[in-house]
């Protein structure tokens, strides 16, 4: 009896196992059938987007005012194109590409663009690794000189020259492609915005405390004293992020860093510590000692500084073009006044010079460019950006594209209108073919040369702001920068190709 019950139990177990195996096998067959069905659908689609989009793109550039969206073969569904797009701006409506992508996908339902968002510093660290390992996203934002540098080094970035036909080039201003063109004339990215560094002032706070919006360094110091007495932060600036020193780098320009670029960084006939640039650092140190910056700025990142300004708790903020979207549309926008910042009347250098340029771009991975459908979609997307509709969409995100478009800006907020007026101001010397950075002299090689000097140069500004270095430390710190500069120039000249 026991033997029979045991055999019966064993048999039942065996049957159960068989049933499980059969079910598993069925599941695998069903899954693979579904997959092959979807693959068959893709391959059986007769129309290719590449040819269709090229035709439509030509029509768009000729027209100039319409977004391209028609599929020539209207009867058959367009082939689905999946793209990845990487950025560090999380809010799609604040990202000049993200806001255009949303509209583009509405008019091109077959194109699916997945946005990957990274923290800014992490993003900058990941991209060179991705470039080196050829694992870049299909389309991604990056600094223009880093795009050309990566292209020169390992060709993981696509050469886009062939996609810049005469019609497309006609949509762009002359400065648009300067920083995205390699030494041998290859265009390796699509332009981002015209990058200029401005200062936003909360006029309501200035009016409340009877302070004039400063136009000179002395006026700024007076403003700091008044705001400090009233427990108001004058300049919203955090030093946890290393990069937002650009507003103060602009002061280096006003004290001659660009005017003396050849003597400082090429011929090396001028010491950094003995140049007039010292005055810019002294100015930052003086402001810090007067209490212009938030007390806890060493643990404050750029986004926290923006939040402080948006909350109406700071009077001023230095902000580059590509970050304006974070203030556009906020309640504080109506109270802002946009200026190029203060001048130093006792400086002999051009105080109207505004460093700028199309210093950022959108690159395409070489892998994505090998797929004709992907590259066609990417090119069409970027051509759409420089139509009037695309230009206006980018403006909504705060980005003024280098496009030959005359658009009515009355529908836009104060900041966009102010920035456009300022860029168009004939009295200002905006050199859109330049960059903030001196390292263009060093073969524009940020990794090997620019970063060695540029990082400690910016770090000194942050150190003065957070109080870890005082004005009295400036001479010694600049001597250290001189030693670094000498070594970098020596290495650059020794390895010059």
């Amino acid at each position, binding site marked *: 009896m026991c033997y029979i019950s045991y055999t019966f139990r064993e048999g039942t177990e065996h049957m159960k196992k068989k049933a499980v195996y059969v079910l598993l096998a069925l599941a695998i067959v069903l899954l693979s059938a579904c997959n092959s069905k979807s693959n068959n659908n893709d391959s059986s689609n007769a129309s290719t987007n590449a040819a269709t989009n090229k035709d439509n793109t030509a029509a768009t550039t000729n027209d100039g005012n319409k977004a391209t969206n028609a599929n020539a073969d209207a009867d058959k569904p367009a082939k689905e194109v999946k793209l990845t797009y990487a950025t560090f701006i999380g809010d799609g409506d604040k990202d000049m590409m993200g806001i255009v992508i949303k509209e583009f996908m509405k008019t091109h339902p077959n194109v699916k663009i997945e946005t990957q968002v990274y923290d800014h510093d992490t993003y900058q660290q990941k991209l060179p690794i991705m470039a080196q390992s050829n694992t870049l996203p299909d389309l991604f934002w990056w600094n223009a000189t880093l795009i050309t540098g990566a292209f020169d*080094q390992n060709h993981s970035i696509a050469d886009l020259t062939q996609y810049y036909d005469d019609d497309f080039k006609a949509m762009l201003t002359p400065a648009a492609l300067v920083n995205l063109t390699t030494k041998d004339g290859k265009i390796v990215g699509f332009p981002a915005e015209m990058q200029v560094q401005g200062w936003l002032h909360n006029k309501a706070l200035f009016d409340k405390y009877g302070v004039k919006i400063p136009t000179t360094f002395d006026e700024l110091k007076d403003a700091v004293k008044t705001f400090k007495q009233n427990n108001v932060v004058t300049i919203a600036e955090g030093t946890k992020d290393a990069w937002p020193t650009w507003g103060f780098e602009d002061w280096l320009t006003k004290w001659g860093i660009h005017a003396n670029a050849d003597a400082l960084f090429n011929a090396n006939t001028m010491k950094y510590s003995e140049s007039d640039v010292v005055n810019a650092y002294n100015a930052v140190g003086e402001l810090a000692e007067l209490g212009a910056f938030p007390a806890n700025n060493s643990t404050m990142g750029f986004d926290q500084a923006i939040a402080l300004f948006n909350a109406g708790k700071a009077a001023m903020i230095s902000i580059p073009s590509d970050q304006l979207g974070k203030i556009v549309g906020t309640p504080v926008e109506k109270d802002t006044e946009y200026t190029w910042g203060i001048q130093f009347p006792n400086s002999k250098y051009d105080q109207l010079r505004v460093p700028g340029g199309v210093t950022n771009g959108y690159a395409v991975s070489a892998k994505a460019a090998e797929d004709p459908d992907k590259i066609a979609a990417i090119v069409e997307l970027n051509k759409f950006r420089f139509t009037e509709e695309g230009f206006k969409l980018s403006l909504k995100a705060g980005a003024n594209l280098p496009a030959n478009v005359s658009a009515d800006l009355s529908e836009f907020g104060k900041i966009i209108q102010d920035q456009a007026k300022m860029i168009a101001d004939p009295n200002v010397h905006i050199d859109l073919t330049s960059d903030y950075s001196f390292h263009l002299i060093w073969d524009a090689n940020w*990794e090997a040369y620019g970063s060695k000097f540029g990082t400690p140069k910016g770090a000194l500004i942050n150190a003065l702001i957070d109080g870890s270095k005082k004005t009295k430390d400036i001479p010694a710190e600049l001597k250290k920068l001189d030693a670094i500069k000498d070594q970098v120039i020596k290495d650059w000249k020794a390895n010059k190709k």
Partner: protein
Amino acid sequence: MVNNLYLFSKRWIKTAFILPTFLIFAVYTVYPLYNIILTSFKKQTFYEDFGFVGLDNWKNVLKDEIVHKVLWNTVIVVFGELVLLLPLGILLGFLLNANFKGNHFVRVATFVPYILSGVMIAIIWFFLLDPGVGVINAILKHIGLDSLAFNWIGGTKLTPYSVVAVDTWKSVGFYGVLFLTGLKMLPKDSFEAAMIDGATRWQRTFYITLPLLKETIKISAVMIVINAFNSFQTVLMLTGGGPNNQSHLITTLLYKVSFTQYDFGQGSVLATLLFLFVMAFSILILAFSRKRIEE
């Protein structure tokens, strides 16, 4: 028959079983280590290798005052965590070994921080410790103790101590459970004999329990030291190494030098230094343990 025995000899089979592990060890441990040490004598960026530069990288790193500060910060974190985590872990182990209502809750509550993400822990502590927006200083100012509202993070002095506090809070539950396990495995007969001889609770603890726990204490000490040297997320999230690189540890500085300044040569020097420190500590503790076992 004899030929078959030769063909499948024990040595051959042993080698075949060890080889995959050895290969993985060689590829993922030995080769990267060799590469790091080699790179420390080169000038190298992401894309370019400029070749050997002799001892230049080592000289630049070892004479840099920031590196001296960073080494000091790391020493504070390592010794701080050792001094705090060991005794707190032991005390927690004793507590968890006791029978009282709520014992399970205490066990879970102290262990939960250990399983949470390090980034999450750091963000939570940021909102406690930050001098501007942190809860601690806000409470201190509210009750009139403004003089005690220090720069727990963001200043040039206190950040390493704050890192010790955060890492200790995160890990004390784990070491508590480790010591609890050790206590559960202690032989009961020694205690029974001591009780018969009239030993007090304190005498049993100091003359029986702690000596029997020595091996657990040594293993815990090694783990604490290794984890302290590898502390990374806490500093990165709390301060980013600032102000002016003053709160970096070796790990965060080597990350910054390698991946933001693209100087793999100097970054490799820091990585090699870290490896040497961890190896030195581990060898010391192992040598001491071996001596103890022989005795």
